[in-house]
């Protein structure tokens, strides 16, 4: 199993982990006290913002590893 294969598995597993973290956060938000529509909307906005940030972090980590492997790989057939 080469580094490219391992990176692709990492991308999938970390993507799944990211979704689970975002849903855990959603669960915490939903279980907290909600006072009216505006507060609920704010909670949803917070949830979506954290998901976007987590997605950005995931992309940056995959990109960094991808470039490191790509630029240092053997390159031969």
């Amino acid at each position: 199993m080469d580094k490219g294969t391992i990176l692709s598995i990492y991308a999938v597993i970390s993507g799944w982990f990211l979704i689970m973290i975002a849903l855990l956060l959603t669960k915490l938000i939903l279980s907290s006290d909600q006072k009216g529509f505006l507060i609920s909307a704010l909670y949803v906005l917070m949830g979506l913002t954290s998901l976007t940030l987590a997605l950005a972090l995931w992309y940056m980590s995959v990109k960094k590893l991808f470039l490191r492997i790509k630029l240092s790989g053997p390159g031969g057939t």
Partner: protein
Amino acid sequence: MLAEMTVAASVAALISELMHRAMVPRYMRRGLLSEDIHKTGRPKVPEPLGPAVYLPFLIASIIFYALTGEIAAIAVASSSGLAFLIGLLDDISPLGPETKPLLLILPALVLIAMYQVIPRPYLPIVGRARLYYVYWPIMLALFTVFSNAVNMMDSLNGMMPLSIYASTIPLVPVLISLGRLDALASLLILHSSLLPYCIRNKYPAKVFGGDSNSLFIGSALASISVISNTEAIFGIALIPFLVSGFSIIASVGGFKERRQIGRRPVILKDGMIKANPDPRAPISLIAIITSEKWKREPDIVREAATLSLISGTLASITFFLLTPH
């Protein structure tokens, strides 16, 4: 309902096989061919074979409805039919990179118009949520995300259909446990319609589906997930598709047509594929898989299908162990 499902799925596979046999020679005679750019000599292959996959799906869905009275099958076929038409339009005359994602929202409206949407998705960890306000924009986005993700996965011989099977077959127990046999029927009809195409599209490809095929399949999966409230579970199963689509969009800075992207994600040499060594080249799933070594096309496809099987299994496990229901 098992007998009706078997009949509809068998009819779908049979009609799809007959249509492939009839359409491929006609496409060859009329010169409806596209280059297989990943092969030496760039052989020409008939495209688009999307109608040979969608029309059997539509006919089998109508038969299933006639046998059982389940309107959900018709709703899925109508909704994904619109995506098929958008894809066919794109095959005939390419749509703009911004227009296509917007148009792919329309199939969701068909599903809403047919009263098949209940905004109560099963979410892992959370359970069955009531999302009466935020559900609708997310659901509209889901259609365009799934359709485009499947479309972007359709880049190597057999990669898309094999990955679709690998990621969605593990979801069959999920739909059975929820008692959503209507959604299961649509999924099995989709698998059957896709089978003759999959056999011909695997390396070395004898046919290409075009956007009419990939957008239809993405939209059909979105419809099936929405009617069964398993959007998140299908989302997990399709992670390799989403990784591929998101990485390309993020690395090129938005929706762009292939010809608008200056640098290719991969380079070719003697039928072998490797990630483009240019640090500014876009990132794709194929580039990630080939980031270290040169690989043959069928090996990359096998790895992508294995990844899809991992994500499909992960989705099924997530539903049974981490989703309160």
